[in-house]
């Protein structure tokens, strides 16, 4: 089941200058902390002239779509889904 959320969240992001990787590691949404196990896809979109970085990530059971607004430097949880999406 997939749901649109569009709520602000806290994210721990790790940048590795050797590997050149940027990986969100923990997401705090409401009272829960979720540990990211894999980044599926990192892509960018423009909303007007604001660049958003979107991270499609998963933990053991859920899928999260996170957006990082490069103008405000805020993170938002856009979407969440369990592993059976219908």
């Amino acid at each position: 089941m997939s749901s649109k959320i569009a709520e602000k969240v806290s994210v721990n992001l790790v940048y590795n200058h050797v590997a050149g990787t940027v990986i969100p590691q923990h997401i705090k949404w409401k009272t829960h902390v979720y540990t990211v196990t894999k980044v599926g896809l990192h892509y960018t979109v423009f909303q007007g002239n604001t660049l958003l970085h979107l991270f499609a990530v998963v933990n053991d059971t859920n899928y999260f779509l996170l957006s990082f607004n490069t103008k405000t430097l805020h993170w938002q949880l856009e979407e969440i889904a369990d592993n059976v999406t219908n």
Partner: protein
Amino acid sequence: MQKQFNQLLPSWMHIDLNSCFATIEQQANPHLRGLPIAVAAYTTPRGCILAPSIEAKRFGVKTGMQVREGKSLCPHLLILPSDPPKYRFVNQALTKLFNEYTPSVSVRSIDEMLLNFDYLNSQQIKQMWVTRAKDSQTEPHSVDPARIGGYYARSLGQARGRTHTNNQLISFAQEIKTRIKSEIGEWLTVSVGISTNPYLAKLAAGLHKPDGLDEINGQNILSILSLLKLVDLPYIKERNEIRLNSVGIKTPVDFYCATHQQLKAAFQSINGYYWYLRLHGQSVDEIEWQRKSIGHQYALPKRTSNVSEVEQLLCKLVEKTGRRLRRNNLTAQGIHLSLGYEDGYWHQGHKLHDPIYTTSELFTASKQLLEQALPLNPVRSLAITCFNLAANLYTQTTLFHDELKKRALTQALDVINDRWGEFSVVPATMLRIQREGKVLDRIAFSGIRDLAEVVLKEDQQMEREEIY
């Protein structure tokens, strides 16, 4: 028996991203990998399936089926809505990667790209080889081809190449496949076809899916064609099959062995000769035709004969069309409206006296067409197209209308929408559908010329962001 197949070395590579939308969704969400999924225009039972995953295809699920048909074949089929930004991003990433191999990359559709390696055959490369060989007092064959090709490629800009050998493109293709997995997404697979012209390269790319790599050349073409039916060939469907059957051509091998006079008789036009050239690996499809029209289409989730509802949707389509027209700095001197009904289409177009450019002009012209269609039957799709396009050069055509003021207003609105996002400022007619979120972002199945423009615009914006 063998006709004269093009004797040049293959220089065209067709790359097809397998089950494009579904594979990208599986890339984004690893929990979906290995499951039968399908991306659909709407997730409702009557929604059209745009892309089934490789796993879903094994159950017989096909593009174009309704969601309920897909579910009847595969009860566990997971249906996802489409997410165009993801697909555009992957398309752009692929284009950037392919540009490292050749400067000539043509995006045929969201999941198909055509790469031309003619530069590897050029006289300049051969000349450079000979010159370097003389300089170093060695025989040509002892010069490291990779160095010469690399030098030429650097002189071309970004292209990375070597001198052309029989299996050069095969090794490029293998490297591209590996780099797609390591640099863009490990779940993405492509089928690659190589040949002496774009048509046979496309045919080769379709021979083994997913993850295929095939070359069609003068030695293997007959054996490959002997395994296919006429309708397996790209652009040959039932009607062309009937044409070919009428002159005794029943199989692809017959098609290949036919004379161009026979083919001219079958197609009743110059197309017969073009088919002859195409099948013999000769150049015929390389011309990039100029844009002739710009349009948008929308399939309604629920049929309606309510005129004001159709007008609102029309307004939004016109706004999108107008934005694209202006982004390309074009004007239109013709407009065409098409309404899809359950039992067919109503369509009407007209040429205009003056070129139009603003959304309000386009809306007025399209509303006049809509009035001719009244009373409406239940409408299931709506399409608007502008034609007779010309460069947007302002010329004073009338003393009484303040054209410059109108254009300045439109440009100001476009600047606001560029800054704050599409549809930040909209005509009042659109307010209701704006709230309801109708007319979703979609990707065309065939050509996506505007993608290049979007990429360019986004690159420029990226540069601006970096400067600030």
